[in-house]
């Protein structure tokens, strides 16, 4: 029996579980895998699209043939426009003329090098029509940090698969970054008592941990603070953040109406869920940013800076000694 990946009618950060119930790497001796779309398939949020592309690319590398079922479901045209089908069904023929993607989404992009990332970031702001530098900074920041994590930590020549979509009515940018690399546990194993995927994911979101050094705030090249900053940006704007690797996923929940903004050093101090999943060989991140709440991006950075030292006895005060001109 070949492996079957079932795509539910929709998958979002609000409802990811059905999609994550798939045993993505449960390959059988039959070197074929099927992606089976729900007959009423409507939609996949960018993180799921990025995961599928990363998975399909992995299948291609290890000689597993990928086929699809129910490719005619109406929502599949959207996946074609997002660029997913060139990885899972390259011979798919759309009945539509391809539109310029500007204004609503960033098509799936495989990022393998720093130069790929530089180009991707420079292209994305005009494509999303973000009307302020602050909004652009929030989006660029998240994409840069999450994609760099893949380039630095996923191992080997692992690429990042990145996509994004702007939901104009909700003023929300959804970003998805996925890889099929070594996973977070492999990167942190043996450090800080990390022995399982759940612990690895939680520790990776604390600044200083995933700098792959036992010293506080990481090594000379890496502070291990990228996930903390990115989660905090989603948190500040009251949106979801999902991090998954191995057999666990963490989801930061949306802030309730009237709830105060309180960024936290410890991800478990946020309203959140930690749940088992079937398994993902690698890492995937979903970040939602409500850009109408970004306001002054510097205010977000200030709050993150304060949260950085939340668990310390004293916040250091070197500010007066730094020469700014």
């Amino acid at each position, binding site marked *: 029996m070949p492996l079957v990946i079932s795509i539910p009618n929709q998958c979002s950060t609000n409802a990811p579980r059905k999609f994550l119930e798939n045993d993505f790497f449960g390959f059988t001796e039959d070197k074929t895998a099927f992606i089976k779309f729900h007959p009423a398939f409507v939609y996949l949020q960018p993180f799921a699209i990025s995961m599928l592309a990363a998975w399909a690319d992995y299948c291609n590398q290890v000689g597993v043939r990928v086929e699809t079922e129910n490719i005619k479901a109406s929502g599949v045209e959207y996946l074609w426009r997002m660029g997913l089908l060139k990885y899972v069904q390259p011979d798919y023929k759309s009945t539509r003329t391809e539109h310029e993607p500007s204004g609503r989404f960033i098509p799936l992009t495989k990022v393998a090098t720093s130069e790929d*990332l530089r180009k991707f970031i*420079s292209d994305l702001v005009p494509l999303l029509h973000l009307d302020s530098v602050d909004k*652009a900074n929030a989006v*660029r920041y998240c994409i840069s940090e999450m994609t760099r994590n893949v380039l630095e930590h996923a191992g080997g020549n692992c690429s990042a698969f990145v996509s994004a979509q702007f939901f104009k009515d909700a003023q929300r940018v959804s970003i998805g970054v996925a890889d099929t690399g070594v996973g977070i546990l492999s990167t942190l194993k043996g450090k800080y008592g990390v022995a399982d995927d759940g612990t690895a994911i939680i520790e990776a979101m604390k600044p200083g941990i995933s700098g792959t050094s036992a010293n506080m705030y990481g090594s000379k090249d890496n502070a291990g603070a990228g996930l903390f*900053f990115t989660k905090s940006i989603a948190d500040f704007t009251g949106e979801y953040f999902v991090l998954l690797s191995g057999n666990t996923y963490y989801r930061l929940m949306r802030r309730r109406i009237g709830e105060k903004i309180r960024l936290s050093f410890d991800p478990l101090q946020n309203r959140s869920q930690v749940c088992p999943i079937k398994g993902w060989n690698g890492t995937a991140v979903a970040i939602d940013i409500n850009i109408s709440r970004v306001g002054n991006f510097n205010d977000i950075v200030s709050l993150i800076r304060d949260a950085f030292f939340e668990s310390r006895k004293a916040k*250091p005060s*070197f500010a007066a000694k730094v*020469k700014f*001109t």
Partner: protein
Amino acid sequence: MDTRIQIAVFEIASNFAENKDIAKEIRDTIILPTIKNNKGIIIDFAKVDGTTQSFIHALINEPLREQGEAFLKMVEFKNCNNIVKNIVLAVVEYSLIRPEDL
């Protein structure tokens, strides 16, 4: 005549300075040799409207670890907008934090 070495970040890393490989290269080929020779540095962020903690960390964490607060006397951060300033301060603060404050 100002003999300090000037680094124009925009020229090397564009208006959103996030490329850590470039930051590491600037650190290893310009910043560290310059401070070893006891010369000053101006890191100019003119036309840079955003950056990441990872970029700034790769740029200045090692000189801060090696030189401590003395590095702050040798370096000037020029034309930083509020975001760049805030991120520079965050990196300086956690790079210089003392073990007894943990």
